[in-house]
């Protein structure tokens, strides 16, 4: 069926899809890196003593790159200050800063199960995300491969996935509580549910989009299924899989906060809710920043990983 269309493609002189595969990820991921390396090399190889111009230039480019984000942040804090300087329920930047300094001076204290440092809260949230996400990868990636390879299975399972995917993972929380009889695994299970969809969908899509040319090579060489998977499918699907993983971890980090508000225990979501009950609004604002920064770090770490892996692979 596929090869028929491939034949026509070739005959009508169209470009076959080989190069299309690399376009979505490579340019954004791999292309900028060599340029950076080059400029760094240049900067290092130029002796700094005589003129000092390269250093000044470098400073200027850094300044130009850093200026807009810093300005944006300052404007945000400015608006926040103006909006809150007359007093009211929402604390201003200065108050939050003071609270943050106090909070982060001892992030790892323990005063019983419901009063622990912010460090512990963040770590236990990360642990839940890690475990739930890990299981989702373990189940979702092989499942994605199977669905991508079998049109029949994919037609069988796709309607179910389409039905379940839009459901908020929190709707699954009661089922988790019922099955596991404990709050902590139930929260982890919620993460599992929300992470698994992007993982399945992206992996399956990646498998379906493996260029027909590569599969024709496999057919002409009559490679074993094992070789097809390890030498052709896996490397070709890797960029899609990494996209799935990135989307999953993003959603997982969104969901964990809400799940922990409901289940309690230790965790950044629970901490937010606890501080609301204590009416420590400045702590809630700190939590918002912490959640944002941790999410950003997770995302950037995965982008870095994707860059490294696809660079090695391509």
């Amino acid at each position, binding site marked *: 069926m596929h*090869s028929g269309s491939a*034949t026509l493609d070739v*005959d009508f002189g169209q470009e076959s899809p080989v190069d299309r595969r690399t376009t979505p990820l490579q340019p954004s991921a791999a292309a900028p890196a060599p340029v950076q390396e080059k400029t760094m090399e240049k900067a290092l190889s130029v002796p700094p003593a005589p003129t000092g111009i390269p250093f000044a230039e470098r400073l200027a480019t850094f300044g130009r790159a850093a200026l807009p984000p810093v300005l944006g942040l300052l404007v945000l804090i400015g608006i926040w200050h103006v909006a809150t300087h007359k007093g009211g329920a929402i604390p201003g930047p200065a108050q939050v800063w003071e609270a943050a300094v106090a909070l982060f001076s001892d992030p790892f204290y323990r005063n019983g199960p419901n009063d622990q440092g912010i460090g512990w809260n963040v770590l236990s949230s990360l642990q839940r995300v890690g475990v739930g996400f890990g299981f989702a990868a373990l189940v979702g990636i092989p499942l994605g491969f199977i669905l991508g390879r079998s049109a029949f299975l994919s037609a069988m399972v796709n309607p179910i996935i389409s039905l379940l995917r839009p459901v908020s993972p929190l709707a699954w929380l009661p089922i988790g509580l019922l099955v596991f009889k404990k709050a902590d695994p139930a929260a982890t299970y919620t993460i599992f549910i929300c992470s698994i969809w992007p993982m399945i969908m992206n992996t399956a899509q990646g498998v379906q989009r493996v260029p027909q040319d590569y599969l024709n090579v496999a057919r*002409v060489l009559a*490679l074993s299924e094992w070789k097809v998977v390890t*030498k052709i499918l896996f490397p070709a699907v890797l960029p899609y899989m990494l996209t799935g993983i990135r989307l999953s971890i993003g959603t997982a980090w969104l969901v964990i906060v809400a799940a922990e508000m409901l289940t309690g225990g230790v965790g950044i979501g629970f901490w937010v809710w606890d501080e609301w009950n204590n009416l420590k609004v400045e702590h809630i604002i700190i939590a918002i920043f912490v959640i944002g920064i941790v999410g950003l770090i997770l995302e950037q770490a995965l982008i870095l990983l994707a860059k490294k892996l696809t660079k090695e692979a391509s």
Partner: protein
Amino acid sequence: MEKFVSIEKVGQTFTTKKGKFVALRDIDLNIAQGEFIALIGHSGCGKSTLLNLIAGLTRPTDGVLLCDGREIAGPGPERAVVFQNHSLLPWLTCFENIYLAVERVFSAKEGKAKLKARTQAAIELVGLAHAAHKYPNEISGGMKQRVGIARALSMEPKVLLMDEPFGALDALTRAKLQDELMKICEKTRATVVMVTHDVDEAVLLSDRIVMLTNGPAATIGEILTVDLPRPRNRLTLANDPAYIAARAAVLAFLYEKQAHVEKEAA
């Protein structure tokens, strides 16, 4: 003539959204061992379809194809294909790309050292020993195509199938690779079927030129035997009357006999 590959009453019909599309009909062709065949025709006439049928990548809707006395039931390493766009795996080095093929064909009988030696020999055959450990995206288009040829040859195929292998290359690189291919064919005595739309390439390289009529429902229009002694030299051939006559015959087929069919069909 001894038949090595025989194509008997082969037709290919595709089922498309608009209904049945007859790509090829009544193809009859016998290819001898060691023969170099060029398939030429206007684009869309089904040259590549025919090549894919010989490769076994698609099955014919009518007729039968035989290779070395056996029906062609599917693709296999004894009919190696050099794809139009090289189709090297970008995550493997040139060496690894070839090794994958060598390993598949010979690992049952030979040890790792021997397999590596074979790979090395294939890469040296196309003059790319220096680029063996580069990735495909680090080398030029002509080099990639050479690796593709080396990969196909490394399997010691009974038939080498080439689908416009030099179509995407510039004229100078193309000429160089054509010369290399002629040398390799002489050395290995390979049976080759090559799809091309380049008249000079067809005349220079092949023993027989199979000219296809315009599609849809294309079939063999004429077969021209190119009776030029080997080794052939492109410079001396340029003024050879036999070469000029062969070239003229193919051009006449393509631009006089088959020139207007496309309009009639459209």
